């Protein structure tokens, strides 16, 4: 019973790292980036390449995956995304879904189409038992990393100068510019961090979700569900939504395997009927 709860939390946390970057770009920058999963995939492959081929320790590869995906995000933001910020959401969707397919084909060409795995250190493998509750070591690591990450993100967005500048830039770009805030730079940085987070999520997710070139398509739905259910106005919303979905998904599959896969969708439908703007969103402001 508690093992299921634990697995659910770990799964939810993983969903959160994957989705948090999207929550940032979608919620704060009001930009629909379906290619988010591609950055996650980039992070995953960076980890696999570093750990398996170059022998870099797994723990070191995680920040590197964050960095590489972040830089990739920055590059794409400066060269491509910057042109579609002001376009309609439909244009953004079409543009980014195109990027997804290109990334899938490119990775397939370079890395091959079969599933790859990362060699995680021995001390992270297996389970140990606390009062009869089976705790997976790797899953525990995910929970710790994600917990820290949430706290840091929330702190940055709500309490720091950068956070308030970012919110100002989003709420009214023209006034923010007039006050001397470099909106372009803030957006670029935010986008890079969002992509980096995706990369980190991808790196952590290899062990649990597997990694192949279709990865962005596989996780896209889950990530979008998290963001729609959680609402996009804060970090806490998607965080709680991830936990809710993770726990319900795992518990549903455990207790009622026949209908388990539908649980996550049922929750989404109920939540959206009840609160179309998401669980924790402010009243629709845009």
């Amino acid at each position, binding site marked *: 019973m508690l093992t299921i709860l634990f697995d659910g939390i770990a799964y939810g946390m993983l969903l959160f790292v994957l989705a948090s970057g999207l929550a940032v770009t979608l919620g704060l920058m009001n930009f629909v980036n379906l290619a988010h999963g591609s950055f996650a995939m980039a992070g995953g492959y960076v980890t696999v390449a570093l750990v398996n081929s170059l022998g870099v320790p797994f723990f070191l590869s995680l920040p590197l995956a964050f960095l590489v995906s972040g830089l990739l995000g920055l590059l794409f933001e400066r060269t491509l995304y910057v042109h579609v910020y002001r376009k309609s959401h439909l244009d953004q969707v079409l543009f980014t879904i195109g990027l997804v397919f290109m990334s899938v084909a490119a990775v397939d060409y370079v890395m091959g*189409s079969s*599933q790859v*795995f990362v060699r995680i250190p021995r001390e992270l493998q297996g389970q140990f038992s606390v009062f009869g509750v089976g705790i997976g070591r790797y899953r525990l690591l995910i929970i710790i990393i994600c917990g820290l990450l949430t706290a840091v993100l929330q702190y940055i967005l709500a309490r720091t100068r950068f956070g308030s500048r970012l919110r100002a830039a989003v709420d009214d770009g023209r006034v923010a510019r007039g006050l001397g805030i470099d909106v372009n730079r803030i957006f670029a940085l935010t986008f890079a961090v969002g992509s980096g987070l995706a990369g980190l999520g991808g790196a952590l997710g290899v062990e649990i979700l597997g990694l*192949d*070139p279709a990865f962005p398509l596989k996780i896209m739905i889950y990530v979008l569900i998290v963001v729609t259910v959680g609402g996009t106005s804060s970090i806490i919303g998607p965080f709680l939504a991830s936990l809710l979905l993770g726990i319900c998904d795992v*518990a549903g*599959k455990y207790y009622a395997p026949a209908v388990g896969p539908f649980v996550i969708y049922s929750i989404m439908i109920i939540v959206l009927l009840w609160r179309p703007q998401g669980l924790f969103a402010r009243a629709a402001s845009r």
Partner: protein
Amino acid sequence: MSLKCIAAALTAALLASPALAQETVKVGLIVSMTGQQASTGKQIKGAVDLYMKQHGDTVAGKKIQVILRDSGSIPDQTKRLAQELIVNEHVNVIAGFEITPAAFVAAPLATEAKIPAVVMAAGTSVITEKSPYIVRTSFTLPQSSTIIADWALKNNIKKVVTIVSDYAPGFDAEKAFTEQFKKGGGEIPQALRVPLASPDFAPFLQRAADAKPDAIFIFVPSGQGGTFMKQFAERGLDKAGVKLIGPGDVTDDDELNNMGDAALGVVTAHLYSADHNSPLNKDYVKAFEAANHFRPNFMSVGGYDGMHLIYAAVEKAGGKIDGDSLLAAMKGMKWESPRGPISIDPETRDIVQNIYIRKVERKNGELYNVEFATFEAVKDPGKAKK
């Protein structure tokens, strides 16, 4: 040159082209080079190219031309491409079909066009009944699932939880195994079905573990085996003495080496292992790896044998390359494949082959499915019952 001359030349060219087309046997190969099942497509294409390189592109005075089309792992696309190949390219044979739904959509087209459809990968039993023109060179899931049930019973495995992917081949595997296993007195406390796109096996494995079985019977399509294996070990099921058995898809040669020690000791029943001990297979693996830089898996032999079947049929049909003649030639064909002796059942047009029991072991630093028992000339049990 006057206009008349040009017109005459054109007419002549037009009249001549059907005659030229007679000399070429066109094979429309539709597999997934991209998308979810891309690895299957690449294995088959690698094998088809290798066969043509080894055997040349002419047989019995006919030129063999393969026209490759990428289905993108989308059955709708397979249907459109098959139509296009039949109508525009006038292919003599269609082949490929990486997954069951792809074979299903192609079946009525083959019937209508009266040309053979060689199924090189998809493994649901009922496929060959969808059209009298379907011939299969891959495998059926009941073949291996029934055999592994027999093996389990003999090896003191009495209580098994089944976990299969929630789609047609999964049901086939589950049904064949369950029937055979229960007939022999086995007990199945839980039968779990995992959604095809399930990223996390944790809840299913936990439920299986709680039932405390002797073994878990697992079928997931090629491509998900590694993830499953890792989580199986993560939960400590291997150390708790729970065995992992199933058809060989889970220890697919394509991925096996990446799975790590978690895969060691897994016992599966399957039609092919890259480790199969025959001179023909040793040459095959060597040539395949040299050409493609990855290990051939059971999908690749489906493609290789499919090509052989087409070549042999053209030769046997003696100059006639219409669909019915080729189909008649294919029925009952027997030959030695890298996987061992195989034949096409003239009644069902399905493959008859040896099924091997294998165990994952480390050999020269790499993981292989090492065969240790053989069940000879296994027909598809899914049809034998009828």
